[in-house]
């Protein structure tokens, strides 16, 4: 039995197809969706725990990739270096979960890591490189 928490990044068009259901149907994998944020017109992000035999797991992930889904391990987290953050707000344009949000009326930018889906979109969008990908403190597998 092999199990891993994965972050799936769907390109904007792909979300309609039930690709995740096909993982069960064709690859005998079971999944548990931990978090999903899929909005119309935006890229979709899904964090799920995927379990099955190692071979099926590998094939299932390959299938997802062939469908244009970006697959990443969730053993990472995104953190903010507060000394670098200038509270410009640029990251809020790309954050799909609302983990980065502007507090009004003062206009400072809050980062709520609990809401973060580790999609990494803010990492390159942040002009001061305050947002960083780090290996997560928790180990989910193996």
């Amino acid at each position, binding site marked *: 039995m092999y199990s891993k928490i994965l972050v799936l990044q769907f390109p904007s068009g792909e979300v309609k197809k039930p690709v995740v259901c096909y993982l069960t149907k064709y690859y005998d994998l079971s999944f548990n969706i931990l978090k999903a944020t899929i909005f119309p*017109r935006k890229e979709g992000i899904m964090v799920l725990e995927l379990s099955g035999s190692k071979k099926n797991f590998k094939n299932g992930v390959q299938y997802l990739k062939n469908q244009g889904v970006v697959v990443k391990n969730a053993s990472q987290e995104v953190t903010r270096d507060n000394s670098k953050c200038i509270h*410009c*707000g640029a990251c809020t*344009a790309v954050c799909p979960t609302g983990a980065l949000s502007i507090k009004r009326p003062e*206009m*400072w930018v809050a980062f709520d890591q609990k809401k973060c889906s580790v999609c990494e979109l803010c990492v390159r969008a942040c*002009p001061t490189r305050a947002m960083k990908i780090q290996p997560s403190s928790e180990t989910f597998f193996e």
Partner: protein
Amino acid sequence: MAGYRVNKTYAEINEKIRSGQVVVATAEEIIDIVDEKGAEEAARTVDVVTTGTFSPMCSSGAFFNFKQSVPAIKASNVWFNNVPAYGALAAVDCFLGATEPCEEDPLNKVWPGEFNYGGGHVIQDLVAGRTVHMRATGYGTSCYPKREEEREISIDDLPQAILCNPRNGYQNYNCAINLTNKTIYTYLGTLKPKGGNANYSTAGQLSPLFNDPYYKTIGLGTRIFLGGGIGYVTWHGTQHKPTAQRSKNGIPMSPAGTMWVMGDLKQMSPDWLVGISMQGYGVSLAVGLGVPIPILNEEIVRYTAVADEDIHCQVVDYGNDYPNGVDRNYGYVSYAALKSGMIHVNGKEVPTVPVSSVVKAREIAMRLKKWIENGEFFIGEPQFTLPVS
């Protein structure tokens, strides 16, 4: 210009600073003061209004003199941490531009480029006291025989390091949207397709030139907060366009006035000069800038009381119109609406995204206020003010 009920001179205001009697308000605080007391009484009470802005300002850079080596060199090409500087000045003088990427940067070849390091970052590293690797080459002359030079330098090793920004503090700017079907990466940040977000970049009611829209107190010699230290306005900035259309309160509706500013980099700070990487666009420098407005009469205090509701900017499509020079806008929105987080464009709700830091802008106005109250900063009387036509 006769007929003011309140008349103060620069000398009187500076005397009040010297004696500790000065009354200073930030550009946000003055709004309520004028509202409560009226302009005349406010002008009697308040002597200086402080403004601030903190934003990527691409037209920025620094002049360096890096001391002769032995034997001497005529440095034609100069690099700092592999970022090229312009060396066609005297032998060991150069200018480093904020938007120069580092030489091995893949730029936009892998799109959108990351632009991790450039001129703005070198400037921040230097003011932070960090050492940078300098390399220079020359073609060799009788008086300057050396052809190559490499050194580790810190800002203390440089006889002169002067921040010199030909265009800062734009008076108003566009609000950018993208009406194409693809995400685009601009100097105003990431713009999602089909009007997915609207980005804007001034501090609104805190921003210097909104508080003195006809530049009645700003010109050559105006002493300012610059990069955490003290600097000066030395000229009108490049692209200064005072003739832009203005609303009744004098506020331009599109990009208008600009300032050319200078200051000694050695007394500035990495908190207020921050190297910037704009995804898919390039490197730049976020500059902290604050201008004190002396309240010479009630007309000036009325200008400083401008609020976000009274400041409007145009919504421009950066997907197609802006790159192709199409002169069109999608209406005007107020900074109050922009700061609320949502505007309406073509009848559709569009979330707004700031690129300029209001938090930092407010902090600059507060710091400048403290400096003046503590008698550490005096108002510089301009030799002449920025052109209005």
